[in-house]
């Protein structure tokens, strides 16, 4: 279990201090017992059309396997600047990963989607294993993934 606090959107906070508000969000990703090695996950935001916006968290330490997180890889262009400092260990089959981040308030209820791509060695890659809109209403509502993710939920504070 990892509890990590990262100030995202820091630049915005500094340039327009009066308007920006940070919200703490916890993302919980529970994996099914798919019975393989540790899964690589990409947690990222896209706009309503699925166009990549920003990286939230990458699980898995070997960047050479990141290309298997296909949609994220395509969106981020595998640009190291996109995920620098936002990586951790891969997630074992059946375990739950919690990531807590601070998101800019303007991102919520603004049509953005949270997505998870997943990949496991010698098994299939799952693009958009999870796709869920980032809304106040959606907070705390668990949804099922279509690949290795059994359930996914985010909680806004």
């Amino acid at each position: 279990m990892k509890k990590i606090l990262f100030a995202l959107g820091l630049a915005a906070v500094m340039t327009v201090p009066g308007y920006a508000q940070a919200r703490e969000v916890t993302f919980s990703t529970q994996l099914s017992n798919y019975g393989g090695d540790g899964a690589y996950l990409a947690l990222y935001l896209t706009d309503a059309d699925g166009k990549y916006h920003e990286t939230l968290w990458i699980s898995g330490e070997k960047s050479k396997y990141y290309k298997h997180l296909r949609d994220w890889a395509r969106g981020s262009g595998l640009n190291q600047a996109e995920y620098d400092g936002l990586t951790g260990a891969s997630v074992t089959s059946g375990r739950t990963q919690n990531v807590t981040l601070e998101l800019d308030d303007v991102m919520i209820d603004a049509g953005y989607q949270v997505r998870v791509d997943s990949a496991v060695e010698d098994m299939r890659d799952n693009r958009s294993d999870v796709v869920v809109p980032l809304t106040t209403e959606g907070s705390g509502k668990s949804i099922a993934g279509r690949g290795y993710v059994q359930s996914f939920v985010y909680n806004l504070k």
Partner: protein
Amino acid sequence: MLRKLHGWPGLVAALLLLVLATTGVVLSVAPAIERASATIPATGQISVADLAERVVAHYPGTEQIQRSLSGEVIVYYSRDGQPGADLVNPLTGEGIALYQPSAFLRWVKNLHRSFLLDDAGRMVAGGLAVMMLLLCLSGMFLLARRIGGWKAVLKPIAGSGSSRIHAELARFAVIGLLLSALTGSYMSAVRFGLLPEAAAAEPSFPAEVSGGTPAPVNSLIALKNVDASELRELVFPYPDDPSDVYSLNTTQGSGFVDQATGELLQYQPRSAGNQFQHWMIRLHTGEGLWWLGLILGVAALTVPALSFTGIQVWWRRRSTSACLGEGASTEMADVVILVGSEGNTTWGFARDLQKKLNQAGKKVHCAPMNDLAKRYPQASVLFILTSTYGDGDAPSSASQFMTRFEHFQADDGLGFVVLGFGDRQFPKFCQYSLDVDAALSSKGLPQMDFVTRIDRGSAIQFREWGEAIGERMGISLALAHNPAPATTTEFELVERVDYGVAVNAPTSILRFRPVQDRRNLWQVLSFRSRLHLPSFEAGDLFGVAPPEDNTARLYSLASSASDGQLEICVRKQTNGLCSGYLHSLKPGDRITGFIQQNPGFRPAGGATSIILVGAGAGIGPLAGFIRKNTDLSPMHLYWGGRNPQSDFLYQPELGGYLDDHRLTGLNTAFSRSADKAYVQDAIMADETALRQLIEKGAQVLVCGGRDMASGVSQVFDSILKPSHMDVDELRAEGRYLEDVY
């Protein structure tokens, strides 16, 4: 140094290597199994476009098509929102089975590469691979030294026991093991960043696509241009996303394909570094190279046996080298013993000599030959006991001897005796002891006695030598070192057939069977048969000591364990203590004895013609070979006796073997008959036929007395002269074997 480099890492790594090797063996089979079940279209038969079309026809929700290097094609699809994966037939696109990678193989793979311990385990596995590399290299050099140079590497290996098994197995497996170790080390080094990782071809996503209406997959030109056999992976675009593209990954490179125009975008060929890395991995895993996988697997299979025999050899060397102490100092000693030993066997003899000399009141200094002092002021006798390594080289504890000896000052009154230890099967039997003897003589040291060469650690020869030397020194030297305290078994004489009494050469064929004793709990638990015979083959040796003497004599075995009995053929020697004892046995009498293996004296088998030569009781093992020759290899026996009416050993049996073709030809010579012929004459009479057989690769096995054996080798030399070959040459090729006494 080389030996230490081979021994210590080997010992430390043995256990962990067992895990690596065993898991490696399991994994090595996977490529062959995958290959066996895969349907593989001929190159040029179908393109990636054809393949994709056929797959999509059966799997409308296809997301990804993968082809493994073994030729398996896997489709990942989604159907009604549920993901799935199937193995498909590339020719039809039809599903064959659910694709479910084996959890067991995954576990084995993780055990193999990381001992299930992730990065820490991977580091250990990588370290082991490097250690294995060292073991292979140092082992190759040791082996080359042992058998006399790189050129001799493919020749038969002499010697016996675990060290021979170790050498034979290693020679067989070393290339495979070297490849596995090298590629494994490389993979590990890359993984941990010790070697640069070749950049994978990662084309960046095309910034612009045509965005037109998607065309059918089989019409896309970029996919038509790639043969299905080159496909690694084809990822389909999202349905209903015109801005998406196909990602194509082939053995040559990767790129993207526009789903409307079929144009290949951003294509990047694989770099040379990437290809190299890819091949290193394939050479390690055998992926797509099922035959290599199996070869590597078989090589890895030898690792448990190599570890076991290696530890045995190491242990024996270690336990025999435990030092008894040097004894008297170099200044005080009146007798000096210097020991040249590779495997430490010679030390056992030296220690016995030291002990007996001490008992005789001598002040003895005992040291390795490498510790030769500048001078031994008080000494009157310098004993040198040495083995020979490889092709006449110095054993390790004597490697510096010749150099040091240049500075040696011989004091007046110092005489020397050299005792060589070796194995007659080696072409340069005890060569190093002869060299040392010559070096000492040339320095003007008085030679107290000629070099005696002890064959295969013979306790009798050692005792006889002690008697002779003791007499010279005016002391009694009752040497009694038996280098192989073998486990003895009790046997009961069940049958004896007597020959030759009328011609003053009483010779008996004695047949024993092991005594049925009460089995202990262990034997009951391990389901050992009540009649447990130790394992042996005809040609091995049976050691037996007469009751009033504890030095065992060795007799060649005429039967194999599978015959259910132990058979020897013994000529009663005049005043022979042991042969007399054996001849006095009556059926039902019991003796104890042990088996000593003699793997260097065996017929080659197969289609090779075998020429067996013997005289008198020497027929024993030869008859055993013929009895075992159920594969009907051509065997020709030349045997000499005294009189056909009296000592024609095995006559009835040989007749039967001729009838059922286990024996191809029988030629006898009798010295006390009308023709007065010896076995050499019988060989000479068949000169042309024998020369032709040998030219075609026949093997000669000679068993009998030493005089007969030297006569026979002279005859063969003269027979072979026209074809410009000689016995020494055959010997070096393992085609002229002797068992003489």
